[in-house]
């Protein structure tokens, strides 16, 4: 809880109010009963931040596309910005990339305020814009060479071709590549200046599952090379597979943020071990007596919440020790779909 002193605009009385970062609190002046709202800045500051965003806002007339969001991205992590279409992902990332004007807020990349120092930052970032298509009649190599020449800081083109597994495609015209290969070239273009931060805006949209998997592998490799990756996506599996840190954006607001485990533990059901068709009616009591969080589903199925892996072995040995019979056991972990459902009341897959 933060504390904030505000002055009543009517009578001038100083009012002390409390609230959480990012929260908007209704306040009534104790002297003149004037009603007002106080916003608590969501100041997020972390050590080794590659990107810091403070109270970023974007309005289009009456529409608030991005509503005072704040977050930070650590160096070397894959940060996934997850949300359905129209949630404000691309607007946010394009404001960070300085492609789009901001209405309000501050953005820093490597501690440099981009509004005034974006030219200094350009050499350090690589960007794959949403639905990017390069020059159709240049070959892959020519494309990379062209973009490379725009920068002072340059990566070795051959290394990029090898790293992105594009050696066999290097002499093909961009227009003749498949969708998956085009996206790989797009990622490769983002790497021509050997950037510290790579922004990938929906890099796998429109790709078939196989091509999507291939692109994932290359993004995972970027993290292994120590690069910071800012990824926007509406695919939960993509965020689950790649991200070290996830921010879920919905209707312009960040509604949850954390690691995958943190989000699942906080907003999902966590990991559940299901015992199917348990023959012993006293089994749930035995498990409860041993400090397990058990619920009964159906007539004879047990659902036991697991907070760490060792507890699975404990349950199995307990069931054997008590001679409790059952048909089968399976373990299911909550996913981001459940987290999103919990937070918004709607399924992410239905909102895309």
């Amino acid at each position: 809880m933060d504390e904030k002193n505000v002055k009543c605009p009517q009578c001038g009385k100083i009012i002390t109010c409390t609230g959480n970062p990012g929260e908007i609190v209704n306040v009534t002046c104790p002297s003149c009963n004037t009603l007002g709202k106080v916003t608590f800045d969501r100041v997020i500051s972390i050590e080794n931040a590659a990107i810091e965003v403070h109270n970023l806002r974007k309005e289009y007339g009456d529409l608030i596309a991005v509503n005072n969001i704040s977050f930070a991205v650590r160096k070397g992590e894959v940060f996934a910005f997850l949300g359905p279409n129209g949630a404000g992902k691309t607007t946010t990332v394009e404001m960070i990339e300085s492609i789009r004007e901001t209405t309000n807020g501050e953005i820093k990349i490597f501690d440099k305020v981009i509004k005034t120092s974006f030219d200094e930052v350009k050499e350090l970032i690589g960007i794959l814009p949403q639905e990017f298509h390069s020059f159709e009649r240049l070959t892959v190599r020519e494309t990379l060479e062209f973009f490379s020449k725009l920068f002072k800081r340059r990566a070795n083109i051959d290394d990029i071709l090898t790293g992105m597994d594009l050696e066999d495609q290097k002499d093909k015209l961009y227009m003749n590549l498949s969708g998956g290969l085009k996206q790989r070239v797009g990622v490769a273009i983002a790497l021509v200046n050997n950037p510290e931060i790579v922004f990938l805006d929906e890099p796998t949209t429109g790709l078939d599952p196989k091509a999507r998997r291939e692109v994932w592998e290359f993004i995972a490799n970027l993290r292994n090379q120590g690069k910071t990756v800012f990824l926007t996506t509406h695919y939960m599996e993509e965020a689950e597979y790649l991200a070290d840190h996830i921010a879920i954006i919905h209707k312009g607001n960040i509604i949850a943020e954390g690691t995958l485990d943190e989000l699942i533990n906080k907003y999902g059901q966590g990991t559940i071990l299901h015992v199917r068709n348990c023959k012993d009616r006293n089994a749930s009591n035995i498990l409860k007596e041993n400090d397990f969080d058990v619920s009964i589903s159906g007539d004879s199925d047990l659902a036991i919440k697991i907070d760490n892996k060792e507890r699975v072995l404990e349950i199995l040995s307990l069931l054997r020790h008590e001679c409790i019979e059952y048909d089968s056991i399976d373990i299911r972990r909550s996913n981001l779909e459940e987290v999103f459902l919990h937070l918004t009341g709607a399924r992410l897959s239905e909102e895309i």
Partner: protein
Amino acid sequence: MRLEIIIASFISDLKTFVRSKGTLFWTLLFPVMLILIFGAIFSGMDETEIEIQVLDLDNSQFSYQLLDVFNETGLIEVIKAEISTEDKVLSYIQDNDLKRFLVIPHGYGETLIPPVDPNASVNLTFYYDQSEQNSNQIIRNVISNVIQSMNMGFAGGSNVIGIDDVKTISGDFGFIDFFLPGMIGFTIMQTCIYGSLERNTKFRKDGILRKLLTTPITRSEWIFSKMLFQLFLSFLSAILIIIIGILIFGLNINITFLMIVIVIATSFLFTGMGMVIGRFVKDEESASMAGGAVTFPMMFLAGTFFELEMMPEFLQTFARILPLYYVNEGLRNAMIYLKTEDAIYHSLIVLIFAAVFFIGGILLTKWRED
């Protein structure tokens, strides 16, 4: 401004251009086809039976026979010239705006009186206006064939009768002289407007402009490199059209300083116009339609294919507000008619149009999204 970036961008454009069959066609082949087709159609369409005035200095039975043969071909209508001496032929041709003229010299008939000396020679003189390439080529061939027959009949095949060709300097130019500068203006307009539209709609849609915004290339470097390429294309198409004009139609074209100024200004003018149009259209399809809506009327109304005087008065007035009209007129005066004062006047108007549209285009074109 970094030269390396500009060169890289230029080379990328060049590769893209060479690899795009459609662009190659519309930029280079299409204007050539138009010139060949329209040139062939219009250059000789005024006359079905082509008139030729003849000064018969010989006035012999043989010369009358020759003229009768010409008339009997059905391709030539021989008209007796109203002069009596050869020394005034050129001024007579110019005064009467004649496209062709034939002189039969004294002694023509005497040479052909049997027995004909195979070593003797007598030459007809064929004066012709170069701008009437097609019709004069036909006449020249007819005269040659007739003379060949005469040589066979009178001299057993020896070339006793020959032709001397003399080009005339005519103040009245042919259709192709009128058409070729118009084609240069039209081609530059097409290339620049559509090139500019592509950069402002397709590149925007494909995210290339957004991508460039996040790289160190500046807007002025990008625009300068594109302008450089556009100028290259403009000169390439102008040179190609000029070569066709010279080689196929035998035009007498003058590469003047003013012509170069107009070509450069025209490139800026229509590139700017493309940028202005590109600001108000969102996608490629509507850009293409908007481009057509601007270029198509301009192509027909600005005096590219026919003179303004052939159009109704109100259309002539309208045409005079179209930039392409001043480009066409300026190029004609600078390249063909060599009317320097008129060329300077038209160049200045083109330069003003270029400044207005190019600066307007730059101001209106945005890389950043709202």
